[in-house]
């Protein structure tokens, strides 16, 4: 009996990293986007740095581009 632990481990690691990172990046993008609706999330009262509309949009764009890159690369590896 030959159980391929290396492949199983690879599946576990890759899918954990991809799943969690993608969701985290999308969450960050949403935080960025919400600065457009309500600029200055955070602020002096709660200690978090303020986020302006422009910076928020930039963060969202970068994060979403990263998500597209991760998903696209994954599909490319499978299809190729």
């Amino acid at each position, binding site marked *: *009996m*030959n*159980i*391929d632990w290396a*492949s*199983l481990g*690879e*599946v*576990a690691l*890759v*899918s*954990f990293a*991809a*799943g*969690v990172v*993608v*969701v*985290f990046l*999308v*969450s*960050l*993008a*949403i*935080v960025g*986007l*919400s600065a*457009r*609706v*309500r600029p200055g*999330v*955070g602020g002096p009262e*709660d200690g*978090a740095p303020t986020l302006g509309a422009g910076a928020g949009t930039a963060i969202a764009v970068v994060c979403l581009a990263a998500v597209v890159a991760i*998903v696209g690369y*994954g*599909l490319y*590896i*499978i*299809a190729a």
Partner: protein
Amino acid sequence: MDLSLIVIVVVVTALAFDFTNGFHDTANAMATSIATGALKPKVAVLIAGVLNVVGAFLSVEVAKTISSGLVDEAQISPVVIFAGLIGAILWNLLTWLLGLPSSSSHALFGGLIGATLVAAGAGAVNFGAVLSKVILPAVISPVLAGIIALVATYLAYRTTARADDGTVKKGFKAGQIGSASMVALAHGTSDAQKTMGIITLTLITAGVLAPNSGPPFWVILASGLAIGLGTYLGGWRIIRTLGKRVSEIETPQGFAAEASTTAVILTSSHLGFALSTTQVATGSIFGAGAGRRLAAVRWSVAGQMAIAWILTLPAAAVVGAVAAWAASTGVVGTVIVALVAIAVAAGIYAASRRRPVTADNVNDVGDDAAVRHEPAVPA
């Protein structure tokens, strides 16, 4: 002549199984999107159906696992595969009637293993491959998907805790459309390949293809279309179970669950593990439910599912074994098996019409479908 007739029958039966696989598993991709309102039910099943077909063309690794390795193709005939498929189809229909998200893949493997055991003996089943490529991933994958979804959900809620509420809802809704589409794509890749594997195996046992061949193009196309059509018709019963009865799912959870499901399925099908899309998706939904609040998950529903999961492989194996025994008596036996299977399938369909679950009532839960249909108590 006789040989090619049985091959055609098996191919048609395999595509019928593929079709049941599609509508049994629409829920995996679309249950949470429909439940959160990210997609309208009809639109959701259309997207899922189309992406299933696309996904079928992505990879053939799982098809190879099935057509070379699980059972010894030198020792079985197309009739054995036919019997195995009958076992898988009947179990799929029964669990669909009950609204249970059981694994179409395990039904398929169970049916095939049961039929092979009866027809060719234990020596023809490669139990090592069954354990390492099917059983072990089946145990690990839902837990893994659940953990990923749990961590991802927790992160999603923590990260967006102070963001604008409206933007969070809209953002994750948009995200869900993308992630649900990816699950549908992954489902096409993973599950359409199982039927491709079976048809390829049949062609190998009939001597049409050489051993260890990959699936020909028409097999990939037919499998993709059959599963896509099944998905489009929609398994509303199972969608209701997964979308509404496991936990109240919010958009960030739906997104996290779907992202986890996609990640697990795509990585494992790339490495040839034939795991159950259903079990992975279900594991993710439980994980996402627990990631927000442990108590929000209806663990009794989890219990019902766990029982259906454990029963699936052996139950389909028993049906497959009986069918193989009957079919081995000759052409008459095979015809009888086919007729009985069609009759049972028709009966299950008729039973489902008594309490139909459709695109229009899929999200109404009070908490059990059965409750709402009891006659109103006169005032």
